[in-house]
């Protein structure tokens, strides 16, 4: 397939923040895996919503209420189309991916006492499986679930190159596995995981599959039907949308049988002092007034990347990754933590610089206007695995240029000069 022309200079014009200066020099923003910048279209849409249409959704019968509801529900349609969901009713708005994953973990443990949810029950003797490269948001909720239910918490380990130990997939996932929750693209290593192999094994043993797509949905096409998972989550603010909105997608028949997580307005069918019945998905999982402006903003962000084309975005970022890996190879003392080749990896590259602490590297880059992240990236077990306190991480997006990667490499040379 021939990708449409990708014009990074034109794209950059849509992002007002990219023209600001930091410490007197132009900003080089290489921290998109942490949060992306937002195009003017998203900012305008949210401003318009509050200026012209603001009202609560699904309650008010007045004109503004109806406009707000239409805009909010249109955002749900956009999300459904973006991930190729069979039905819009499978798209639940959450606060972020952490809430998406916690929602599932709590709903699953609520199944222990919830009538009709027997098939979701997890208890002693059962196990839940994650990977060693999970973000804490896809790790801690499952440790907590294991604690609540008495189930065993397991993980698929990673190898020296930052990839999953493949044989462990079949070994760790067994007949007593109830849930396999894993990351599509690692935020700390950039690794893109073999979804098909993990899903095949999980399906063979009857386990539910949950995919953390926070770092993949902004960067490559994500098709829930092709991926074959049961649930998938991502967050808006890494996808050029605002903070405060995330998504949980799940197969309808599962969502319809799953106990609620939070109780409140909007998630009910009828409420009586003797008991309550619950709304059908997605509203069953959306208690309370939702993040209306943020969902609308996310919808516009999806329009924005869809117009560019996710295939083109992936091609652009794959080229940046290959360029950066090659450029990094010329930096003495730089060690990539994670896959050092462009196959099955995303445009997020963690590294260490010999003799210089990651916090010093990132602080000194910041003094040159270059924004990268340093730390354990909320995936501390990854650092423990490689025996390092932290890494420096450069991550790219649709607006990243090869000139910015050159600036990073030159910046690193200056840092080394100072510490030399």
């Amino acid at each position, binding site marked *: 397939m021939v990708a449409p022309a990708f014009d990074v200079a034109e794209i950059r014009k849509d992002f007002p923040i990219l023209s600001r200066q930091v410490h007197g020099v132009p900003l080089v923003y290489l921290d998109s895996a942490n949060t992306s910048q937002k195009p003017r279209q998203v900012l305008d849409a949210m401003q318009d919503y509050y200026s012209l249409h603001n009202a609560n959704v699904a309650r008010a019968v007045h004109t503004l209420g109806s406009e707000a509801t239409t805009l909010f529900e249109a955002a749900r349609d956009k999300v459904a189309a973006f991930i190729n969901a069979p039905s819009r009713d499978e798209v639940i708005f959450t606060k972020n991916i952490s809430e998406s994953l916690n929602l599932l973990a709590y709903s699953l443990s609520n199944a222990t006492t919830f009538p009709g949810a027997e098939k979701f029950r997890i208890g002693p003797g059962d196990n839940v499986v994650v990977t060693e490269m999970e973000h804490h948001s896809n790790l801690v909720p499952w440790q907590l679930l294991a604690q609540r239910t008495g189930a065993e918490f397991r993980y698929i380990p990673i190898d020296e190159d930052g990839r999953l130990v493949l044989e462990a997939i079949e070994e760790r996932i067994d007949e007593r596995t109830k849930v396999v929750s894993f990351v599509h693209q690692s935020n700390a290593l950039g690794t893109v995981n073999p979804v098909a192999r993990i899903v095949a094994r999980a399906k063979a043993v009857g386990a539910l599959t949950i995919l953390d797509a926070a770092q993949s949905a902004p960067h490559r096409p994500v098709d829930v039907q092709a991926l074959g998972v049961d649930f998938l989550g991502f967050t808006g603010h890494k996808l050029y949308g605002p903070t405060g909105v995330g998504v949980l997608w799940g197969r309808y028949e599962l969502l319809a049988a799953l106990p609620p997580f939070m109780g409140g307005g909007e998630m009910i069918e009828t409420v009586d002092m003797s008991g309550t019945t619950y709304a059908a998905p997605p509203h069953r999982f959306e208690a309370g007034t939702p993040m209306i402006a943020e969902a609308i903003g996310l919808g516009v962000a999806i329009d924005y990347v869809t117009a560019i084309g996710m295939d083109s975005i992936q091609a652009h970022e794959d080229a940046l990754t290959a360029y950066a890996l090659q450029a990094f190879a010329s930096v003495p003392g730089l060690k990539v933590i994670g896959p050092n080749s462009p196959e099955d990896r995303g445009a997020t590259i963690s590294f260490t610089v010999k003799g210089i*602490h990651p*916090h*010093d590297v990132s*602080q000194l880059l910041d003094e040159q206007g270059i924004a990268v992240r340093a730390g354990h990236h909320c995936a501390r077990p990854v650092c423990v695995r490689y025996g390092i306190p*932290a890494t420096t991480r450069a991550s790219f997006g649709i607006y990243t240029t090869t000139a910015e990667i050159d600036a990073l490499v030159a910046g690193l040379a200056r840092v080394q*000069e*100072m510490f030399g």
Partner: protein
Amino acid sequence: MSLSMDSMYQQIILDHYKHPQHRGAIEPFDAEVHHVNPTCGDEVTLRVRLADGEIAELGWVGEGCSISQASTSVMSDLVVGKPIENALELQEKFLELMQSQGQGELTEDEAEALDDAVAFEGVSKYPARVKCALLGWMAMKSAVAEASNAAGASGNTGASGTTEQGAQS
């Protein structure tokens, strides 16, 4: 790279990082403490020996960012051979400077007393790094307190303790 005036990394800091002072374990010692900065993973293990109301000897080993290691080195130079009271006063002054969010105004006397430690003034503008600069100072404070307590209680030597710095600043 030429250092701009507002760089956090003043030459004094880099010099101490490259040539740390009082680095190493001392024997004998009155107290040993181990402090960590959980957000960055900086660590310092510090020993002191007190004599005649002074910090007679101080030695430390550690790893972490340049700010944490250089600050511990600068602190060591400043307090060794000083009366305990003066060392703790300096610690208070340095803590104040670090909590000033870049607005600290030192009197001439204070600046003179803090000497090389003044170079860390720029760190106070970065809340995420303040704990790095304080690590060694906090370790010195607790080591001195432990050594003084031990001396007061029984005159024993070799007391040790481990503290996370998290709650202290």
